[in-house]
């Protein structure tokens, strides 16, 4: 039974990880909590839905699922570029204080969420079924739902691709440099506009994939993106600004949440999450990774 919970928790945590990583990427560079990421996930979930509705006539099952993911990821990447241009480029150029980014991102998120309500109404939609509801039995008592397993596989591979891009390519190096010290990176000839745009694109792609998974798990509605807060919680627990910390934090959050739902029910779990979070922050105020972006001293 506990093993079963662990597996479910890791599957949920992998979706949270996608959310948290998109969130942490932007925090890394611009040092603010990007709440527009939630609105972006809502929009991409709808983009994926539209794509799947068009494609369902031609392809089925796995190809359809992959095509939906690709469409949402691409849409998310492009949308993130637009968001960066509209909401943050000017603030960056005028050297505004971090709190303005924060407000700008919240407003942008609400704007995107509201645009969905305008164009798609606030009804609930659900994706066409990609896979029959199979379950795999392991060792007799252990059951794994196939969709859960695929969620785990696909989000893990998206995360691996992101890590490879970040740590093995030139643009990834540029992103890491800029997040370490924007001024020096600029002196070394990196164009901050391009680097920030690249980071936003990557975060948008992650948001797109996450949006589809959230849409499958919770059905589609405009406020879907408010699950961004799970990513926020996960990346704070992991240590803000650390990608690997965000990953660990997200999986941990997923497992704890599933266990809490089993113990106290879904209604009370936010209360316990709050208490656990409070104790955690008191004991280890820098997050799991222990590495934290220093504010100017």
């Amino acid at each position, binding site marked *: 039974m506990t093993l079963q919970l662990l597996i479910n928790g890791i599957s949920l945590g992998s979706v949270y990880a996608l959310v948290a990583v998109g969130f942490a990427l932007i925090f890394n560079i611009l040092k603010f*909590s990007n*709440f527009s990421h939630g609105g972006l996930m809502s929009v991409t979930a709808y983009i994926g839905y539209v794509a799947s509705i068009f494609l369902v006539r031609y392809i089925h099952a796995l190809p359809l699922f992959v095509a939906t993911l690709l469409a949402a990821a691409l849409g998310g990447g492009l949308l993130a570029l637009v968001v960066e241009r*509209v*909401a943050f480029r*000017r*603030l960056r150029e*005028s050297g*505004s204080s971090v*709190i*303005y980014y*924060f*407000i*700008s991102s*919240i*407003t*942008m998120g*609400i*704007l995107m969420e*509201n*645009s969905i*309500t*305008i164009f798609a109404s606030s009804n609930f939609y659900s994706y066409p079924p990609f896979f029959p509801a199979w379950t795999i039995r392991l060792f007799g008592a252990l059951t794994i739902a196939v969709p859960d397993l695929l969620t785990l596989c696909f989000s893990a591979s998206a995360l691996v691709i992101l890590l490879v891009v970040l740590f093995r390519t030139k643009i990834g190096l540029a992103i890491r440099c800029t997040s370490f010290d924007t001024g020096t990176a600029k002196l070394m000839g990196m164009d901050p506009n391009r680097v920030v745009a690249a980071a936003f694109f990557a975060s948008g792609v992650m948001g797109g994939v996450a949006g589809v998974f959230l849409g499958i798990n919770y059905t589609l509605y405009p406020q879907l993106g*408010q699950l961004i*807060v799970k990513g*926020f*919680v996960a990346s*704070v627990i992991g240590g*803000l600004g650390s990608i690997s910390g965000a990953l660990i934090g997200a999986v941990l959050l997923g497992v704890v949440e599933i266990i809490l739902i089993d113990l106290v029910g879904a*209604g*009370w*779990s*936010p*209360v316990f*999450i*709050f*208490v656990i*979070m*409070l104790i955690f*922050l*008191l004991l280890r*105020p820098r997050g799991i990774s222990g590495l*934290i972006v220093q*504010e100017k*001293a």
Partner: protein
Amino acid sequence: MEYLLSTLTFTGIALIGVLGTYMVTGLTGLFSFGQAAFLAIGAYVSAVLFKNLGLPLPLAALAAVLVGLAAGLLVGLPTVRLRRDYISLVTFGFGEAIIAVLNNTTNITGGAMGLSGVPQHTSFPLVFISVVVCLAVVVSYKNSKYGRQCLALRNDELAAKSMGINVERLKLITFLIASVMTSFAGVLYVFYTTYVEPGAFGWVVSAEWMIIVFVGGVNSLTGAVVSTVLLTGLPEFLRFASEWRIAIYCVIVLLILNFRPSGMFGQHEISLSFLRRLVRKGAKAP
């Protein structure tokens, strides 16, 4: 006329919430996603005490404000030592926890169905007087030693600390005043709408209050007041374009942030006496 009056009443109640947010976010530079939860605490505690236990209204209101204070202590004490991002996270978690509690204590609070059948006791004059009192509190706080210390703290916490300011105590005091004020706004709210449900107090409400503070200008109290009137009134008057109004509102906010980042009023303040005259004139006009 009645419609206008009810819009004004709601604006007044929102204004008290925004004043609390102004103290926490504008003066001290902390982001609290849990301010709306204090509104919920004030509303639910007073309504339940009044309706279920038959306590007299002033006593119920007092109890609600005291519970708000206690909750402020509970959240404030451990968080003032943390980094700013963590403060926003903890206050956020606190807000969600309060909503979860309200949703799950169905036999007392009515759960997600909401609490209905609260008699209407709040009137516009009462709200107006409360707004003036709260304004006076915030203005004198801003101009006092504490307010100046808050500004120092907002701009550079380390420098403020090294000048001998007790940063943690200062944050806690500001947070507590704000939570008391917001809880009181909750009391006014529930006895005006006669119905409350947990969904009305999510973090989005707190975020909206912060947006209002920033649109007005983070350094200007006058700005906060004017933008509350504009931004909570505006959606009401844009109601003919009901679907588009929030989108329009967001676009306005984005434009202001992009092209006038210091907010509408920047550093400027209209003096207290002028403000009072202005508010009175506004209330008397039809």
